[in-house]
């Protein structure tokens, strides 16, 4: 066996071993590397009140309700199967709107309402121009 072939064989074995180790690490990370929990996951495995988590899903259609104090909103986060009621006081990102993705940081209160301390908007992978000429930034009305 030529020295070059020996080095090549060793390198290939090493690369395969590294890829294998990487996959093992990824399998281990699988549940822990997620940024947020979905309503379905929370329904299956309830989170005790007061424990900080991130909740992610879609803002249900027609669910955003402005409260009388003017800064608090109630809305529902859903993922097609389960729903979670959320309350938030503060300024939401421009892209926060109904039928759009959201990641809320906060904790459940004793009655099962998720009290969000921070709201992040999650948009999907689609990019397209506004539907009509003259409508400059359709996203800013959310």
């Amino acid at each position, binding site marked *: 066996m030529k020295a070059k072939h020996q*080095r090549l064989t060793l390198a290939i074995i090493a690369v395969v071993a590294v890829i294998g180790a990487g996959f093992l690490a990824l399998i281990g990370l*699988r549940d822990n590397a997620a*940024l947020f929990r979905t309503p379905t996951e929370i329904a299956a495995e309830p989170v005790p009140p007061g424990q900080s988590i991130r909740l992610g899903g879609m803002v249900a259609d027609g669910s955003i309700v402005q409260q009388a104090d003017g800064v608090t909103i109630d809305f529902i986060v859903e993922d097609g199967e389960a729903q979670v009621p959320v309350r938030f006081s503060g300024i939401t990102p421009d*892209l926060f709107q109904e039928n759009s993705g959201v990641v809320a940081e906060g904790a459940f209160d004793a009655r099962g309402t998720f009290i969000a301390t921070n709201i992040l908007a999650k948009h999907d*992978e689609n990019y397209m121009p506004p539907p009509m000429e003259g409508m400059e930034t359709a996203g800013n009305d959310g």
Partner: protein
Amino acid sequence: MHAFANPTRFLSIARPLTLWLFWPGFALAVFALGTGLFYTPPDYLQGESVRIIYVHVPTNWLAMAGWSGIAVASLVQLVWRHPLAGVAARAIAVPGALFAALGLITGSIWGRPTWGTWWVWDGRLTSTLVLFFLYLGYIALASASSERGETSRVTAIFGILGAINLPVIHYSVTWWNSLHQPQSITTGGSAIDSSILWPLPISALGFTLIFGAIVLMRMRAIIAGNRVEARLRRMAQG
């Protein structure tokens, strides 16, 4: 491939090629960024902030392509002992780190108006930050352990090992739920409307040519530095 092993021969090609890569790349990048800023329509949801895509995607593509280059060059160095492979790997590291930083910065600037945050520890952002740190580690290791102009074997092994992060970055938005949206451009097509998309490949090509020119310049600088060092050593012994 060993035809280019001779540095003199390599330099005679690399010198004119640097200009042939840089100026067309510069022209393409300026054209693509100009049309991306002033000509293409805004996004229906994000508005004008979508225009940062013409910098954000090419810089991140090059940050990842750069490490792929380091990994391949390191493998060639270890297995075939090609004398220029180590030089190429080291030449990629600094522009690679720069583009990784630019990708993180443009992403952060884009994230503030769209997501509502500069930074979040999701899979895509974290793995890209790890890539930036890998570049810094590679640069430190290469400069600490290289002797007589040779890239050390430890550096080459690190270059190959670091490549494990590349599929993690790519699939991070598929494997784990994240704030960053999934891939827009896949082999199945593009989720970006063609009116917004078309300057993007031009911009990516332009930035890639500029990146190639920077790598060639750095390779020439490293070879020149090695020659100076070798001559000084001979004189000192002389």
